[in-house]
């Protein structure tokens, strides 16, 4: 159970993990030293064991992890992994999908109130879009290969058989390990490029109070280049991505985590956070495509319709007004972005 793991232990520096039990004070000079009678007892060691600790001792081989003799929490982690992580992930992802579906049926697609103006305005340059799409592709690969590790055994294995599934999962493991690096790069670039437009401000409070204008037509709270919803996505991606990166690197280089308990903790954080990120990204994809007319162009083409920009990012457009008229020639047809 997650609850059984002490999250404060993320501070690895505090990890005083091995149990040196019953360090006996030097015997009184006249007391017989009876090593047989004083033998350590497994039962006592187990009872004295603090959470996450192992009954441990000395080994002569260089692999000092081998000195951890009994780690009862291995079973706890396996339980956490198999139950908590499994169900939390499933609930978060399926729940999000369900919410989005309900939202779609209730609210429907958010249309442009004034239709397409036919004139566009530059929203993301090619570098920004490159960074976004690189990260996006990586994320999808990571998510699929990652979800496979949690759910594949129960869903795909019965479908494809042990050998095919194992080969695919093996491939997935390599993909996951290699794709992680461009993903991390993408996160870093997006952070640097967009941080200046994502500093939260008072205006974001109003935006949130107004529900982002998504609940009713015609009520668009003002927003600069990024509204509060987008800022939330940004920070979720940056912070969540960073946390996934840190925990992922630790998982990839187990020697960095030191104690196995830290690795286990990293694994649980990584898995649960990844599920949450998948849910967040579902929301992001929804609003960027199906959920909102005109939104996809921003990342698709890099240019958005002026009316879309005026409705959703009036302050940003205002700042750009001088240039709006000349950036792009009018278009003949207007296609909704889907």
């Amino acid at each position, binding site marked *: 159970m997650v609850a059984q793991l002490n999250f404060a232990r993320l501070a690895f520096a505090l990890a005083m993990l091995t149990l040196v039990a019953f360090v006996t004070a030097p015997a009184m*000079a*006249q007391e017989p*030293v009876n090593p047989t009678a004083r033998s350590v007892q497994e039962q006592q060691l187990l009872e004295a064991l603090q959470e996450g600790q192992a009954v441990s001792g000395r080994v002569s*081989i260089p692999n000092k992890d081998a000195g951890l003799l009994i780690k009862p929490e291995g079973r706890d982690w396996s339980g956490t992994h198999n139950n908590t992580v499994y169900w939390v992930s499933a609930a978060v992802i399926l729940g999000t999908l369900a919410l989005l579906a309900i939202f779609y049926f209730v609210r429907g697609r958010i249309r442009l109130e004034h239709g397409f103006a036919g004139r566009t305005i530059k929203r993301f340059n090619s570098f920004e879009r490159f960074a976004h799409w690189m990260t996006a592709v990586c994320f999808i690969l990571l998510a699929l290969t990652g979800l496979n590790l949690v759910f594949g055994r129960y869903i795909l294995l019965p479908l494809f058989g042990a050998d095919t599934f194992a080969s695919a999962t093996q491939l997935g493991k390599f993909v996951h390990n290699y794709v992680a690096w461009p993903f991390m790069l993408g996160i870093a670039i997006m952070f640097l490029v967009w941080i200046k437009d994502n500093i939260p401000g008072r205006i974001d409070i109003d935006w949130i109070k107004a529900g982002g204008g998504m609940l009713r037509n015609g009520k668009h709270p003002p927003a600069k280049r990024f509204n509060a919803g987008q800022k939330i996505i940004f920070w979720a991606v940056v912070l969540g991505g960073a946390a996934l990166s840190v925990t992922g690197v630790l998982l990839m280089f187990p020697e960095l985590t030191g104690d196995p308990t830290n690795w286990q903790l990293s694994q649980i954080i990584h898995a649960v956070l990844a599920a949450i990120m998948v849910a967040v990204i579902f929301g992001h994809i929804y609003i960027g495509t199906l959920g909102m007319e005109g939104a996809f162009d921003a990342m698709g083409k890099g240019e958005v319709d002026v009316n879309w920009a005026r409705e959703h990012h009036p302050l940003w457009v205002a700042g750009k007004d001088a240039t709006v008229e000349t950036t792009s020639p009018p278009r003949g047809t207007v296609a909704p972005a889907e």
Partner: protein
Amino acid sequence: MLVKRKSGQAGRSRLQSAVAGLASATLDRRSFLKRSGLAVGGLAAAGTLGAGTVRKAAAGPMMEGVEVDIRKNICTHCSVGCTVTAEVQNGVWTGQEPSWNSPINRGTHCAKGASVRELVHGDRRLKYPMKRQNGEWVRISWDDAFSEIGQKLVELRENSGADSVYWLGSAKFSNEGSYLCRKLAAFWGTNSVDHQARICHSTTVAGVANTWGYGAMTNSYNDIRNSKTVIFMGSNAAEAHPVSLQHILSGKEQQQANVFVFDPRFTRTAAHATEYVRMRSGTDIAVIWGIMHHIFANGWEDQDFIDARVFGMDEVRAECEKWTPERVENVTGIPGEQLRRVAETFATQKPATFIWCMGGTQHTVGTANVRAYCNLLLATGNVGKAGTGANIFRGHCNVQGATDLGLDISNLPLYYGLTEGGWRHWSRVWEVDYDYFVSRFDEVPAKAGREARTREQNMQTPGIPSTRWFDATLLDAEEVDQRDNLKAMIVLGHGGNTVPRQPEVKAGLEALELLVVVDPHPTSFASLHARPDGTYLLPAATQFECNGSRTCSNRSIQWYEKIVDPIFESATDYWIMYRLAQELGFAEEMFKNIEMVEGKFGPEPSAESLLREINRGGWSTGYCGQSPERLKAHMANQDKFDLVTLRAPADAPDVGGDFYGLPWPCWGTPEVRHPGTHILYNSEVHVMDGGGNFRPRFGLERDGVTLLAEGTSSVGAELDDGYPEFTMAVLRELGWDGDLTAEELSQIERQGGDDVDAVSWSTDLSGGIQRVVMEHGCVPFGNGKARAVAWNLPDPVPQHREPIYTPRPDLVAEFPTRDDAREFRVPNIGHTVQQAAIDKGIPESFPIVLTSGRLVEYEGGGEETRSNRWLAELQQDMFVEINPADAAERGITDGGWVWVTGPENDSRARVKALVTERVGKGAAFMPFHFAGWYQGESQRGNYPEGTDPIVLGEMVNQITTYGYDPVTGMHEGKATLCQIEAA
């Protein structure tokens, strides 16, 4: 039985058949050697094995469908004598199974025994003869090697004499090999022939033999199951003799036994004791006298036993009175009360046994230590019965046998002295003229005021101990009491890093004219120095690649079969020594009575016929009854022998009534069918059931007191009082000479010549005297007293003497080491060194007591075991154990590098720190198995390519220092001083 997962099989049938097709092609010997040896040689040249990937097995598993031969051999790693059961297919050793039937190991092994199969994988073995030419190792043929070595030896003999060549043999030889090596030295004409017993139990042999007759373990590992009280002193059997702990721990459990461990270090043996006593290194005599002080003060001694069977205990009692608890505590660090508890338990909860090892023997007072231990046993009557005794755990697999067979500077095979009588006995057995041997020895000129020696006198003078050979090379010729300095070392199966003062060993090696290393591995003899020329490496086979017999610590002799032929170009010891003898021109004489068989490279002496020759001359020690046939029958019937008594039931075919391995003495000819002697000096049984009593070998009386036993003799003896050894004269006096057969009598008369009366139980080649004496229930060597006082040795009553480098200079005035003297052809200046150390303030600048010892994974100098990848993985770094308090003072962390420095030769060693409470504050411990580093530098490049052991490390004996036992030349390996600092 197993449930296979069907889906798992189906999916991989193609891959599976492909792999199976590749691998099931049966592995024959040739391709095995190719795979495992020469091709793999460079695999780990960089020092680390390619860490990690699963490599395909070199020797492979059991091959499908190929017939399996089962061969029984004996583990080559310690004296316990575990049977190794090998599975051989197509001449390749493919598997090792538990040897359930052996009463000694009952299927079990330690880390070394369980990995012996790797020795004939041979990745790091020396593969063919090599020599060093202009600094480069080059491959040569066996013939060239022998002829070049032979020529050089003959040249040295002419210029510097026979004594300029040293024959350093091995405790890993078979009995037959040991005997052959000693015989070779005799034919060559020198007594400078030695082996590892010098550095492990030479002081034991001297001390014990001088106490009660024979220098060996009195009981057996199995017999300790009977003990109610056990003392270990300076023995870490859990690491050095792990399988013995099977018997000891079982015994401890069954008997609720008391187990005391005395050691400066809390060892793995101590972890299983019922009481651990930490003592200061080198204070054994004070500890023993401290224990005996309580025994005598409380009347716990066995006075009846002392009266009947011990001489001189009163003198010991007087010495013990001086060792009050306060004085003992001051010297040893052990509280008086603790020793009182030990004393009472040992004296009253009987049977009690006393076990010691190198912690007791490797001291300047080693022989005296041993005699003190014996005195404790004698005072409490704990000798000569089940569950009692001096259970001396020997080291190497055949160190007892090699000692018995006289691989020793001071006697001939089977403890016949270097006297005219001894030489004449063996001349008679060998059927070679006595004068021939005289002619082979050097005449020694008068030197530095010392008298000259004739050839015959030189023949009776002990040689140079293996601990001092380099002194005989480096000292001024005037200082060396033989014709010339030592110029050549012929080293057969002996490590070089096992004696102290390695910087001087290195200089000695560089000064030699010829160095020949006959060994499966190059050893530090080859790697410590970079002599450009005159070094030869000859690949010897291991004992798994030949047959013969070996003697365990408990004197049981086990016959072992060859498992596989010698691998690569390696050759058996028998062939190598035969070829050397050929080259030196005396093979015909030396092997005249030995049957030759066809070996790998041509005719070689058969082990069976060598053993028969040993039987023909082995009367003194009872090596006469163990014919090859009887020993083979024992190996074939191991399951018949009892676990505790080691005896087979009387009705067992071939081995009925025998003790396992016919432990010596096994009196008379094989036809007499003496069962061997499980427990020495046991007067509670008939001599034909392995009974005996103490041996009167020190005269018949002293100071008007008889040295014969009083009012007691062994069960069934027709003489019910003490009696002397049996000669024809004694036999005639008793009227028992009539029992001799005509054949026996004619042999005795023939060999006796003018003095038939003088023919004795130990020289009668017919065996008749022994046979007749035993028919009268008597013991051939007589019935005497043990000696508490050995008047012929230094310190007849053992005296505590401080180690040369002592942390307690304040005690040196009262307990100084012995005065300087000349011993074994070289000076022993221990006293001068001790004084100089105090004058220079060494105890202040080197405040930590350093002791050394064994690791379970390695053996001896360690080349063989450090080359075994299964063992090497378990101990990858040389280390020093240091107490947490000492470490904290010095900023040393566990696992960090440190420099250990010693008080001589500016010695220093870079090793890893193992911070542990095993050692007390002010003490440190280092294992002695490492070599291949010298003062912080790796010497991997000095090994021929592909023969460097996987693990190299600094030698503890760079740091250890001067100090020699006056009786045997044993070095001081357990108590010196050092300093440790973070590197």
